[in-house]
Structure formats: structure tokens, C-alpha cells
């Protein structure tokens, strides 16, 4: 199936003297993490299906610097930012889509001050716009009537007030969208943000992802939908910890849409 994926790079577009409609910023998790790579591929399948002319930076992409900045290493963040901005400005990038809310937030909010001005969309927003423009149709498929709860990524929700795009997509699957006790602006963090992904938690009486998974289990979902590769990892670990991986799937919204159409 993988040979069907069309993933052109910016360099290829440039060589052909063309410009893509949008740059797909894959991000480190989307490039290297085994679970997140599946999300990346699912999103690419949808882009291919909808005939979106997109490109990736490929080996020219580098970490946005988000985990460095949130750790307090402003130097490293700005070095990464300035390098990425130079690459993207050289390609005259105007519009970026990414499946990682951390990349989304950093490029959208923190790059402009360093000379990188782009229209940045989270993949759920982008898919929603494809839907609105009639370039994409969403069918319920295997998810019709399934009980799905959406875990708000902090850097998409509270950080940037995007709450409805992912939910609209879930509704389009004809699924039963159920909300957790803490959701939207009061959604509980998965525990990975602020560079916590890369370190052990401080001493406490529970892991944050377990707390969040318990909130999700309370609403008895068949699927926990996520919109962030890090949340996905944390919730997947939480579900495994509760030995529920046989009953409950943790899926990115792009995967739900792609699977529903057997892409």
C-alpha cells in the first residue's frame, strides 16, 4: 500500500518550477515515532485522495524548537526557528498544515516574531476546509454509530482556541461524540506538554496520562480520538495501563477519516 503514497518534496517542486498549494510540516514525531508515522501516512492518503498539491520539506525539515523553548532553552529554540524560517522563506512558503499541535502553535505564533510569516493550519482545520470546499467527502464507514470521545490537545485547544474543527469531523463520521468531564477549555492535559514527553515526571501519586485516561474511560468510549501525536502516545499508554487496549482504540482524527474510507 505504501508505494501508493505520493509524497513530493519542496525540492522536487522547486526543480519542476512549481509551487505546492500547501506545505505539510510532518514534525519529529510524525517522522520518527512508529505510532505517529501511521498518522502521517493516514493524512497523506487523504491529501492524495483529495488531490491536494502538497509538499514536505523532507530532510530539510528540522525540529521547530518547541520542546527546547518549553524547557527554557531559548537559544536552541531560536537557532532552530531561524534555520527553519530560512529554509521556508527560501521556498516562499505561504501556507502550512501540520498534524502536530506543538509544531502548529510554534510556527503560527512564535515564528512571525523571527521573520516567519505563514498561514498555519492544524490538520483538522485543513480537513474541515477541504470538506467545506467540497474537495473531500467523509463517510462514517466502520465508525458509524461508534462512541467516540475527543481529547483536546492543550496546544490546539486552550493555546489557540481550536475546539470545533476536530469535533465537526467526528460528527461527520456519523459517530456518537461524547464529552469527557473536563473538555474544551477545561480539558485535562495528557501529561506530555512542556517537554514532559522527554523526561520522567516529578514525584507524585499518579501519572497525568493515567488521570486523563480514567476521565476518558468514565464516558465508556469505543474510541478515544486525538489530534496530537504526543497525546496519542500518552493516551495509548494510559489505555494499556488500564488493560483496555482490547476494547478501546486511541486514534488520530486523520486515521479515523482514512480508515472509514478504506484508504
Amino acid at each position, binding site marked *: 500500500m*505504501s508505494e501508493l*503514497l505520493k*509524497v513530493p*518534496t519542496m525540492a522536487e517542486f522547486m526543480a519542476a518550477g512549481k509551487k505546492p498549494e500547501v506545505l505539510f510540516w*510532518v514534525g*519529529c514525531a*510524525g*517522522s*520518527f*515515532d512508529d505510532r505517529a*508515522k501511521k498518522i*502521517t501516512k493516514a493524512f497523506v492518503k487523504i491529501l492524495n485522495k483529495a488531490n491536494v498539491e502538497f509538499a514536505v520539506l*523532507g*530532510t530539510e*525539515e*528540522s*525540529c521547530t*524548537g518547541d*520542546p527546547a*523553548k*518549553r*524547557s*527554557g*532553552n*531559548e*537559544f*536552541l529554540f*531560536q*537557532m*532552530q526557528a531561524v534555520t527553519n524560517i530560512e529554509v521556508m522563506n527560501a521556498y516562499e512558503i505561504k501556507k502550512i498544515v501540520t498534524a502536530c499541535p506543538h509544531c502548529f*502553535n510554534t510556527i503560527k*505564533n*512564535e515564528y512571525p*516574531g523571527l521573520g516567519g510569516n505563514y498561514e498555519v493550519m492544524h490538520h483538522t482545520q485543513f480537513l474541515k476546509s477541504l470538506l467545506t470546499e467540497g474537495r473531500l467527502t467523509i463517510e462514517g464507514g466502520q465508525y458509524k454509530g461508534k462512541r467516540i470521545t475527543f481529547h483536546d490537545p*492543550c*496546544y490546539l485547544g*486552550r*493555546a*489557540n*482556541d481550536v475546539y470545533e474543527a476536530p469535533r465537526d469531523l467526528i460528527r461527520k463520521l456519523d459517530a456518537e461524540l461524547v464529552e469527557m468531564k473536563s473538555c474544551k*477549555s*477545561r480539558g*485535562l*492535559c495528557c*501529561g506530555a*506538554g*512542556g*517537554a514532559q*514527553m*522527554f*523526561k520522567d*515526571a*516529578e*514525584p*507524585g501519586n*499518579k*501519572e*497525568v496520562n*493515567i*488521570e486523563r485516561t480514567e476521565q476518558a474511560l468514565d464516558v465508556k468510549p469505543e474510541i478515544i480520538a486525538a489530534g496530537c501525536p504526543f497525546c496519542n502516545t500518552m493516551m495509548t499508554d494510559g489505555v494499556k495501563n488500564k488493560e483496555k487496549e482490547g476494547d478501546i482504540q486511541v486514534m488520530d482524527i486523520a486515521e479515523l477519516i482514512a480508515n472509514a474510507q478504506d484508504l
Partner: protein
Amino acid sequence: MSILPQVIFAIVFFIGIGYFANSVIKIARNIKLGQDVDTSDNKPQRWKNMARIALGQSKMVTRPIAGFLHIIVYVGFVVINIEVLEIIIDGFTGQHRIFSPAGDIYNILIGSFELLAFAVLVAVIIFWIRRNVIKLKRFMSSEMKGWPKSDGNIILYFEVVLMCLFLTMNGTDLQLQLNGAEGYHTAGSFPISQWLLPLFDGLSNATLIIIERTAWWLHIIGILVFLNYLYFSKHLHILLAFPNTFYGNLKPKGQFDNLEAVTNEVKMMMDPDADPFAAAPEGEEDAVPAKFGASDVQDLSWVNLLNAYTCTECGRCTDECPANQTGKKLSPRKIMMDTRDRLVEVGKNIDANKGEFVDDGKQLLGDYITNEELWACTSCNACVEACPVSIDPLNIIMQMRQYLVMEQSAAPMELNNMMTNIENNGAPWPYNQMDRLNWKDE
């Protein structure tokens, strides 16, 4: 008629106001110890935020019970101040109920003050029960032991006493009006204090006047004492909530400031023509290089310090904090309380040393806030979202992390590994940048 009460009133009033003005000057001086930040942008939005969040209490009601009770106390506080205005004018002029010629309007006003006073009384008692009987979790945290706990209760007692004095004053006034006592003309309506009348049954006019005057005096003195107590308490939010919501962050919550000092360094590193051995520009030879991040209150911005004075320790931030909920030491409320405590300490140091801060061997980082608290933060913004008066504890946490990493190289080891990876191979994990597109063919 003796002029003595008027003289005493004027003295009491001006001492109360003068002392309070002195406190305000001190608070302003301390806040200005912070670094300058530009808050001149988008004034219309700032006014709107102040109107909506502070005046309109919009974020209080996300917790309906506390929100509703708080609005009662807030409206009561604001409206009953009209009555305080009358009391002050009466005090200066020696008149009694100087607004009473307003007739029906006056009756409606006094009547509504009474109803509000009663509602406030009930709300405050429920607040006390929440703190002391039900013992809500967010009032029981470790940072709420000792003074912060007493402080919260003292404020409630103050309000109970003030409301009782107000109703006693009105009740005896009504009895005196009914008795036709001299100087007590018929004025006002008393939907609540009329129920107190049986208590005054059989008392002579002279006794009633003593009670009425005592309640009147204690009420106004109580208000002045309360005003001056604010400086020492967590209750400054009743005033500072307004500037604090005005100067609150307008950017998306996920947008953290890019440090300008760092940008300059990075630009120099990227500039092939930059001369690393260049002498400092003329006049700046002795300039001290900027400190990265914050280790003490003077390194924080003045908005951070205003935040600290505004915090009323309600604990909604801590209650929503994922780290705190899972038993970590981090409490955003404690970050704000520590910042204020250290700021007050620095202020006292300046007062004691003729206007100059003398190094006391202490700082906010380490002596008040530990590294463990700072590293427990997930930067999820739940605390910022939860604050009903636009306080941003996350901003302080991030500035202190910057100090730990850029000035002290004191990050947890795993984070050093992550950062080394980003430096070497452009990802937080040790994967080669050249392998970034391998997923395509896997």
C-alpha cells in the same frame, strides 16, 4: 449642636485614607521593580477585557456556586458603597441621612441596600462553611496553612461584622423614627432590619441613640480599617482585578515571548560578517550583559508582579493543574503567593536601606520556589485559563526555567539529552535528519 463629632470624623477619615494612600504608593513602587513590558497595544480590547472579566465577572461563573455567591458579595460591595458615600457626607456635615430628600428613590435605595446586605451575609456565611466545615480541597493545600487560612477567614468575619453593624444601625434608626425621636425623621425603607425591632422593644430613646450611633461609627471605622487591611491581605483583588485584567495577555495562550536578548545573539551567530572580537559600542563598554530568564522578582515583568498582588488565593488554578492533581509539588497558586511574599520582602529591604536594595542572600528561585515545582509543569495553560482575573503563573514558571537552563545549565538530565539531540540531529530523539522522510517508504 456640637461640632466635635464632625472633627473626630474628619480626623479618623483622613488618617484612614492617608494611611491607605501610603500603602498604594508602596505597592506601586514594588510593582515597578519589575522589568518594563510594552502594554500599549490594542487598548479597545484591553478595556473590553476589563469590562467583561473584572466588571462583568465573566470567568467567575465557570464554577456556578462560587461564582453566584461571589457576584452577590461583589454587587453588594459596589452598591452598598453608595450608602457609604452618604455616611461620609453625613459625617463631615453633621447631617443625618442627607440623601433622604430623594424620597421614594431613597426608600428604594435603602431597601435594596438592606436586601443586598442580607444576601451578602448569607453568601459570606456559606463561604465560611465551604472553607471551614466542608473543607473544600483547594482551601486545604499545604500553601494555605497558617496566615493564608486566617487571612481568608478574617476577611469573611470583617464582612459579617460590617453587614451586622449596617443592619443594626438601620434597625435602631427605624425604631427611633417610629418613636418620633428628635433628629430621626422618617426616611428609608427597611425590609430586613424591621425584623430586628423586637430586639429594641422597651429600650429608651437615649439607649437606642447610643446603639445607633455606635453602629454608625463602628461601621465607618470598620470600613476604613478594612481598606487598610487590604495591604496586608490577599484581598487586594477587589481593586487590582481591574488593572490586572486590563494589562492581561492578549496573545494566544500558546504564544510565549521570544527573548529579544537571545534574538540579538542568534542573529550575530548567523551573520557571516559579524566580528566576534569586536569591541563593545562606545558608551556601552561597562554594560552588564542581559540576564536570561528570572531568578528573582526584579527579573520578572511588572505585569507578573501586578499579577502577584492581585492573586486572591482562590486556588482555581491549582485545582485545574494536571501536575497538582496527580500529587506533584507544583501549585500555580503557590507560585503567585511566593512571588508576592518575596516582592514584599524585597520592598521591606528597600525601605530599611534608604531606598536601595541590599543583597540579602536570598532570591525567589530556591528560597521560595524549588526546581522540582518548576519542572513539574506541562505548560498546558489550565491555570491561566482558570484564573478569574487573568493572572498568568505559567509565564513566571517559564522565565524561571529559562534561568535554570540558560544561566545555570540546570535542566534535568533527560532534557539535556533531548536538547543535545535537537542540536545535533534536529529532532528530540537521536534520529538522523537525513532519515526524516524514511516513513514514506516503510
